[in-house]
């Protein structure tokens, strides 16, 4: 079943499934009960005759991710097309940094791609969403709209900037709903069943013996997805075709970064995580033992549980000697625990035992992942399991779908791989490691393409 019929499947799915979701009492929020039936736009038309240039864009609250397909040969394009392509080429491919904030992740670049009969490369570029006006100016100036083919876009920005793109750049944004894309992305992994894609932490309660273990995601339903981007969305996925947003919180990755910036003066997520990795939140938080002198055993609270986040900062003296690292760590721990706690209650309400944590927030952030693994296990008496994906910011696999509109099905692989390390330039090794390991396991020395292609067969 290809992805398109999967989308249709949403539409034609009998409502009985929908009832089963209702019976679990998803009374949350507004419309959250509503089953999601795919994105408002269909990309079928693009499928038929893609024209150049090809862009895919995910405009998130904090970061915008741009995918560009560069054809290897311009010969069969007409003059006008050729000029446009060359202009873009010169600008985008000619450098790896754009202004102070735009970055092309060269290590992710994919060559020898065949998209709709054209050979080419796929490039990955990211820049802060706050720079969108500058990007629009650029697109206008460089006449990206030359062929008016449109850009596949998702994330909130697809809605936000739709009009501007239409009026200023004369480009149509083909919008894809991000939650839809998110679930499709996970299904995609499900489909290709990469063994080590999904993992959990064994012995999460014992830091010394806590290990990453692969998890078989063959038959995952029902499961909860906790997507931690700038904010947090929690989806309950009951089948391939059926999911609903059951909850969410505004305390997410954006909160972590925002607070860290205010508290420590750091600039980037990587910097914040790096600070946190060297800090100790016990100097900032008040633990149960700080108040009770030990465990509060009557209610099963251990002495080292956090009783009050930032509790020690009520004292002026303690504030004076608070270290940046400790503050960053406390912020990270506070937000992670809070997300864990909300996720746990949602899982309980939905009667779901598997919780998949994804999203940008977990990128290069093992501290949070281990904390989440611990919290799920500890507070549920081992009933709940926290699962993670190697492509932690899988929400952007949504681009898989977007690109999928011009890359044929078998090429999805590329995008999944592309996802593995986009945005993570300073921590390239993480992706590289994962890459190497996968290849090792597969016994392949070739490119990802072959790995994936083999899988398909």
């Amino acid at each position, binding site marked *: 079943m290809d992805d398109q019929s999967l989308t249709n499947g949403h539409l034609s799915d009998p409502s009985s499934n929908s009832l089963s979701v209702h019976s679990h009492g998803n009374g949350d929020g507004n419309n959250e009960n509503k089953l999601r039936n795919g994105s408002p736009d269909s990309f079928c038309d693009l499928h038929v005759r893609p024209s150049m240039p090809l862009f895919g864009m995910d405009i998130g609250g*904090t970061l915008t991710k741009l995918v560009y397909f560069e054809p290897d040969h311009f010969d069969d394009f007409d003059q006008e097309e050729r000029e446009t392509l060359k202009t873009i080429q010169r600008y985008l491919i000619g450098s790896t940094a754009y202004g102070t904030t735009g970055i092309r992740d060269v290590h992710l670049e994919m060559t020898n791609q065949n998209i709709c009969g054209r050979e080419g490369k796929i490039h990955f570029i990211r820049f802060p969403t706050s720079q969108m006006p500058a990007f629009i100016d650029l697109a206008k100036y460089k006449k990206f709209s030359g062929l008016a083919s449109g850009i596949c876009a998702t994330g909130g920005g697809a809605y936000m900037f739709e009009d501007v793109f239409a009026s200023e750049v004369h480009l149509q944004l083909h919008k894809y709903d991000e939650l839809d894309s998110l679930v499709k992305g996970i299904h995609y992994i499900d489909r290709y069943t990469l063994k080590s894609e999904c993992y959990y932490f064994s012995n999460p309660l014992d830091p010394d013996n806590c290990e990453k273990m692969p998890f078989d995601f063959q038959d995952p339903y029902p499961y909860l997805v906790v997507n931690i981007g700038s904010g947090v969305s929690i989806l309950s996925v009951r089948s391939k075709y059926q999911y609903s947003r059951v909850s969410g919180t505004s305390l997410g990755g954006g909160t972590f970064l925002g607070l860290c910036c*205010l508290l420590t003066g750091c600039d980037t997520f990587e910097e914040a995580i790096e600070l946190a990795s060297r800090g100790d939140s016990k100097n900032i938080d008040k633990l149960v033992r700080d108040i009770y002198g030990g465990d509060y055993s009557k209610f099963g609270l251990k002495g080292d549980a956090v009783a009050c986040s*930032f509790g020690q900062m009520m004292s002026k003296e303690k504030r004076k000697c608070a270290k940046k690292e400790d503050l960053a760590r406390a912020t990270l721990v506070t937000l992670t625990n809070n997300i864990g706690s909300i996720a746990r209650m949602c899982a309980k309400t939905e009667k779901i035992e598997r919780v998949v944590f994804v999203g940008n927030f977990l990128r290069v952030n093992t501290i949070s992942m281990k904390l989440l693994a611990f919290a799920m296990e500890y507070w549920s008496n081992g009933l709940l399991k926290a699962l993670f994906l190697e492509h932690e910011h899988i929400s952007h696999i949504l681009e898989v779908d977007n690109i999928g509109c011009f890359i044929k099905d078998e090429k999805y692989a590329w995008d999944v791989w592309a996802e593995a390390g986009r945005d993570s330039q300073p921590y390239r090794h993480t992706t590289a490691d994962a890459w190497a390991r996968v290849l090792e396991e597969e016994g392949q020395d070739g490119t990802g393409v072959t790995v994936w292609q083999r899988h398909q067969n």
Partner: protein
Amino acid sequence: MRRINRARYWIESLVFQQRKMAHKSYARSIDLPSEQVFHNIKNAKRFAIDIGGSLAKVAYSSVIKRKSTMVFDEPDVPGICGSPIYNVSEKDQEVVRLHFVKFETKYIESCLDFINANLINSKEFVQDKAIKVTGGGAYKYTDLIQSKLGVTVDKVDEIACLIEGCNFLLKNIPDEAFCYMRHGNPEYKFQGVDSDIFPYLLVNIGSGVSLCKVESEDKFERIGGTSMGGGTFWGLGSLLTSAKEFDELLELAEKGDHKPLDMLVKDIYGGNYGEIGLGGDVIASSFGKAARCARDTSVPNFNREDIVRSLLLCISNDIGQIAYLQARLHGVKKIYFGGFFIRGHPFTMHTMTFAINFWSKGDIQPLFLRHEGYLCAIGAFLKGMREEDAEHYSWGENLAGSSGLASPKQTTASSSFDYHMKNNFSLLEINRLERPLLPCPLLKDIMGYFPDTVDLTQDAEARQYWLDCFHTGAAKTKDLAIKSQPNSSDAVERANKFLEKYRSRLNSLRQNPCAFGHLTVRSLLDTSTSILEECLFPDIFSQQKQLENEVALHKLSARLKYLDGLPLPERLLQLAMGFLAGNVFDWGALEVCKILEQSNNFGLEDAQAKLQKRPWLFDDFDAWSSRLIRSKPPLKPPYKCAVIFCDNSGMDIILGVIPFVRQLLSMGTNVILCANSAPSMNDVVYGELQLLAKHASDICPILRSALAEGRWMVMESGQTSPCLDLRLIDERLVRTMSEQGADLIVIEGMGRAIHTNMEATFHCDALKVAVIKNRWLAKRFKGDMFAVMFRFEQSGIIAGSAPRSSSPLLSSSSSAASSRSVSPVSSLSYLSSGAPELVRSRRGDDSDRNGNCEDNGDGLSPTASSAKIPITPRGSR
């Protein structure tokens, strides 16, 4: 030495804060600074301390000794006023009062030094007593407390205390719990006392947050919590803004705007995220823009106010969401918030209410508590008390000593009112009532009953009028107070203190009408009484009442003779007129005061002449009259037993009510005549009424024999108010009503029948009689001054028309017991569906069981409990 200085500094700083409050005279009039923070600490008897992560709360009980008036009937003993009818003297009255004070935990040592200095030396405090300590600090500070105070520390579980305290407040303080609706009118909706409080979720927001599910008094569990609580707000807030105090942070938050820092859905989507129903203004990522902008050098630094606003919003939202999730998981519909986080702060309450309504679509109700911070301290205190006093009491809030909620309308924090409210918020005083109070069994719908006719929080026009009216009236009260104690050297000073305190309360109510619970004419009147009492004016009308009673009593004989000479129908009319004319004599009505002060000889006839001519504004006299005449005495008494709640002293009670009582008695109806338990305005008080009844019975043989036979009963209502809250009346009265099978309730006076109970419905017939002595109110009713309300409300079903047996002893045949569905005797319709006849006879046997209110097992006992009326004692103010 240094320690003492520190203690001193601490007290001074607290006092300084208090001085910044509006009460200037309050600060002047008391010499000891300690008294401002720790009211009556010198008489403190028992302590409990709740030591939290950031705040400590001390609870202590004290015995307030104060003067009260009493009347006695021994003419040979020279009384103060030497009246022939009765004597008035002062008596010492003791009131047990609970006090609650909070301070920051870091001052604990200073506080203990202070308590030590003030208490250990006093004889009341017994050394080696165990003191209940709860909260996290119970562990940390055990040694300190033991060494400082020389007491043993008895640690009690925090959560158990928390819940006990919450239950106590919900059951005893009528205006404790409220919903908050920012755009509602009123913004605050109080819940009233509720005996059916379980199950509920208690979210205690201290430094951290604990969530407890409470299913009954004894069954509760901690089901969850979060570490993001008040301490996080304080700690993070201080880090981000360098503001030092919690309240300072709240003030900043009130002025800020979260939009510069929080990433809203519209910041990402440009509008709503319609697909999942998220509005554009929903926060997508708290502090999300702080990260985005940190890299933009063009963006200026953030405002402190905005940062704190975002922080408060983010923490309140989070707590609201977690509370909702837990409530839903556990199937609980009510969420109460405790802890010292909210502090009546409208923005916080709005955020939490919004969060819970958003997630639950209004299915789960968020409720806030006026005394949220004291739950644990109250619980600890009660635990200590229970060990010594087996008795259970009812409790009432001391309106004069407690503090109210902050004003929702506040915009700047500089006005003295805000300071006053914020600092004063820390005070709570509760009085122990002498006897348990229960709901009146005659009420048709006890759960739905609400005493007050007009909610002044909703009715702005009425609020404006009454606040003005009481503001003006307070001056008159002050004059009367001074006059009432001619021999006291400081009467003027105390009376001025009353005036200032009461007017300041009225002003704060102007700003936040909900600050002290429901705002009603009743609450305004009761607050006045309460503050007068605080200022040592327990009974300002004492002499006036005595004088008028004496004058009226002289006229009783002639009045009775006149009435006896009339044919029955005419007599009934004259009785009604007399009743009404008597009700004109009300010192609570300014217009009447003027008349009474101008003419010394203003008598019943003069009053009668003032009355509106028939047909009255509400004129059910004909129905009433025919109802009485139809049953020919003495074979068929019109009613088995009438309960009468009377109003003023003097002409009213003696020439209006007593002849009316006498008529009913002579028709075979028993009468329970009820008066206030303690003085309030010129209303007749129980003690006085007892003597008056005795004097009246000396004049008239009918009254004499009825009194002797127990057919005329004089009882106390349990109230201390010119109004009447039928949810809280004296336990004995409730019992007697049930035993007597009361089938008529008569409520007299503006306070009892118009300001309250006008809309009340009863199981039995009700007669509501009042003369409207207030021009504004009369106009509202489209009437004139001295318009008359004579409402006779027959209890719909077969009332009166049903065949009635005149025999007091009905057969207790088994067939009667089995015919459960037939309950022809309306007089007992308020009882459970059990056969009334059987009930009656059983009661006859059991009547000397000293009013045990318990269901005797077969479900037929005609008590409150059998009628599914909650019998938990409840307090009133």
